[in-house]
């Protein structure tokens, strides 16, 4: 039996050695010049200052203690959802600060004449398009119109700075400075989109690096999981239970993947044909479900917009939101049933279902916007065509679109609160106090991370699209996510049971950010079309005197000095764009080649490892043979 005392002797020798080494190093330092000594000591003190500053900043982090306690009780998968929620709160707050300081604040300052400011309002060119009478505070107002207006964004809310229609200023004069509000409005929109893009990419790059590092090494993965699987540092019984469950799940999924690979390799030609035709058929069903959703959303929007003049019925107002929420609820259930018939490996099953759900949720918003625009641009008379949009029904169409986005956001929030109050808590009460078999078999709901993440990404996409039409929308989104954090936390602690399938945190973080990026890209498309293509309304908003919202940029450039104009036109011309594009392609090819070379080196090293283990086996066999002969 090996006694640790032998080893402690060698430890002692090692320690003495290091002690002598340190002595020599310190003697070395004395011979360094004073300048180097000062450099070294100042570097050390700067490092100390930085570390202390980082520690202080970490105390300012929002919800640090809450997320830490959730991680301790429920594992890192659920904690990643709450970190993601916190990220969205911060993102929305920053977007709100941007829009407020560059768009809303100058408007308010100049409208109320603070700091000796005033504003220009250039009269419009096409008089018949400019009649805009919001049904605001005119005549006798019933008491119940206030909550109704609050919920649907009409009435008194329509003329506040919440919606596009308030910003009817062409230029604001703050003391002697001329502030070009239309240009600021457009540039701030681009700025918040670019900021969101950069922030998400920065966060996903960190997750991507971690993903690569933790990639499964195919060598001896089973031995590693079994012999080194248990973390001996775990002291908490709950954490131990979670670890047992995650180990069991990991082993089971690995074994199942292996069985499935074997099954796929064993498939005959006939089996393959059958499976592929079944998959094609099921994909056609998926497409049919999707078209059904889109068509119902289109009809609901057309119906709701057709009755927009009859503002009294709140249900009609909220019809598109209701239909979208129903579609977002039913479609994933159908997809999860269909995917089981398609016979994929479990990991691929999860990914494909998620991709389909993401597509449904984001495409629903797109269809809503498309149907809104088809209503707005529908023109029958000549006068209407001259305006470019249906000026009778939609004198200020951007505000209407803003109202729809506002209604979607509010309804989403109401649904989250209602589901928690009226579904989760009664279910928990039922399970706790009623001990009959079917209720106990149903049990508590699991905390489905992907469903919850898709929910908040859906809300965030609405916010991105809607901020152009309703500059104060990010503030509402910030407050909404702030409250949702606490609702979800309470719901998780009291009414949910932890999932039977724990997800690894690093891969899920990366996945959330990728889906968020898809949402952002999908938000670019409607905004781009609306800014560049659809004529802006002539009755309200900062772009009344331009054909489209984008037209303010060429107009401003024409006001620049000639030299700068020439440079800008040069950048936008083909003579610059084509070589620039080619250079970017070359850089991209270089990086792809570099990545390919690195991959080849990794493969070679892997093969070397295999050969080394084979050599070891060979030598051990030789040794045992030699021992047998002696």
């Amino acid at each position, binding site marked *: 039996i*090996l006694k*640790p005392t032998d*080893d*402690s002797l060698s*430890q002692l020798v090692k320690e003495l050695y290091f002690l002598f080494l340190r002595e020599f190093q310190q003697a070395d330092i004395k011979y360094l010049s004073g300048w180097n000594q000062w450099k070294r000591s100042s570097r050390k003190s700067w490092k100390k200052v930085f570390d202390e500053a980082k520690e202080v900043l970490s105390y300012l982090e929002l919800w640090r203690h809450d997320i830490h306690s959730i991680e301790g009780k429920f594992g890192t998968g659920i904690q990643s959802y709450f970190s993601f929620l916190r990220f969205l709160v911060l993102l929305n707050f920053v977007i709100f600060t941007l829009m407020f300081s560059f768009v809303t604040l100058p408007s308010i300052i100049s409208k109320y004449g603070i700091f000796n400011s005033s504003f220009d309002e250039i009269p419009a060119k096409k008089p018949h398009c400019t009649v805009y009478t919001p049904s605001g505070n005119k005549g006798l107002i019933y008491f119940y119109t206030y909550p109704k207006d609050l919920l649907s964004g009409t009435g008194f809310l329509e003329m506040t700075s919440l919606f596009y229609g308030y910003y009817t200023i062409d230029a604001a004069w703050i003391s002697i400075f001329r502030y070009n509000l239309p240009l600021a409005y457009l540039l701030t929109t681009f700025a918040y989109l670019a900021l969101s893009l950069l922030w998400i990419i920065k966060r996903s790059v960190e997750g991507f690096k971690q993903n690569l590092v933790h990639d499964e*090494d195919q*060598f*001896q993965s*089973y*031995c*590693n999981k*079994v*012999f*080194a*699987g*248990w*973390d*001996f*540092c*775990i*002291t*908490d*019984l709950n*954490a*131990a*239970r979670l670890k*047992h*469950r995650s*180990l*069991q799940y990991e*082993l*089971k999924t690995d*074994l199942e993947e*292996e*069985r499935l690979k074997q099954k796929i390799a064993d498939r005959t030609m006939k089996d393959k044909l059958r499976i592929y035709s079944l998959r094609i058929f099921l994909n056609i069903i998926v497409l049919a479900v999707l078209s059904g959703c889109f068509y119902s959303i289109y009809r609901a929007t057309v119906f709701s917009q057709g009755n927009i003049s009859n503002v009294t019925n709140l249900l009609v107002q909220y019809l598109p939101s209701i239909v979208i929420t129903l579609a977002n609820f039913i479609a994933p259930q159908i997809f999860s049933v269909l995917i089981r018939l398609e016979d994929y490996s479990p990991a691929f099953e999860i990914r494909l279902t998620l991709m389909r759900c993401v597509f449904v949720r984001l495409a629903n918003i797109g269809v809503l916007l498309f149907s809104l625009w088809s209503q707005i641009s529908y023109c029958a008379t000549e006068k209407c065509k001259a305006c470019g949009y249906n000026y009778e029904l939609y004198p200020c169409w951007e505000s209407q679109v803003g109202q729809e986005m506002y209604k979607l956001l509010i309804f989403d929030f109401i649904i989250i609160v209602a589901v928690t109050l009226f579904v989760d808590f009664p279910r928990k009460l039922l399970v706790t106090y009623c001990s009959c078999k079917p209720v106990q078999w149903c049990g508590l709901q699991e905390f489905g991370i992907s469903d919850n993440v898709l929910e908040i990404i859906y809300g965030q996409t609405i916010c991105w699209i809607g901020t152009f039409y309703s500059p104060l929308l990010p503030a509402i989104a910030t407050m909404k996510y702030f409250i949702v954090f606490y609702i979800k936390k309470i719901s998780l602690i009291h009414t949910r049971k932890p999932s039977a399938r724990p997800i690894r945190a690093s891969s899920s973080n990366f996945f959330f950010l990728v889906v968020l990026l898809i949402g952002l890209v999908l938000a670019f498309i409607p905004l781009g079309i609306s800014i560049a293509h659809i004529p802006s309304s002539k009755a309200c908003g900062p772009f009344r005197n331009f054909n489209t919202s984008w037209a303010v940029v060429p107009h401003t450039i024409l006001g620049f000095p000639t030299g700068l104009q020439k440079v800008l036109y040069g950048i936008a011309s083909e003579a610059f764009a084509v070589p620039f594009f080619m250079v970017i392609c070359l850089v991209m090819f270089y990086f792809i080649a570099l990545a390919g070379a690195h991959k080849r080196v990794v493969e070679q090293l892997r093969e070397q490892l295999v050969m080394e*283990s084979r050599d*070891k*086996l060979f030598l*051990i*066999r030789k040794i*045992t043979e030699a021992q047998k002969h002696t």
Partner: protein
Amino acid sequence: ELLPEEEKENARSVRIPKSRILTLPELRANPFQHRICRVFSTSEDGDDSMSFEDFLDMLSVFSDSATSEIKSHYAFRIFDFDDDGTLDKKDLENLVNCLTGQSEESRLNSAEMEQLIQNILEESDIDKDGTINLSEFQHVISRSPDFASSFKIVL
């Protein structure tokens, strides 16, 4: 905290019963707690009680400064449930059941267990005798990236 007040003077010679050792927070949640007590206890009665020296031995093996050979040697003894010097199928089965939890529904079913043990033996059994001896075990552990960080207890 394990030793009552009156026995503190002859702490070196007293043996603490297994039931009190298992109340330590580091061992309380550990599925291998009984094996750890059995391996490190030098008691002749077979009651797995530990003296101060045994306790020190255990902590030094699980500490950060113990080498990989020492840790893998003791890990082998802990995983060898029937104390016969090799890890055979029964030992591996016990080991996997400890990992996945003690209740009935958390165990793998027999087909999965068979498949898992086959895979483990394929990866680690060099001389193909159906069992893992100490040198094969140490060979596999030396290639395992997680062993050093998971096989440690810090008080």
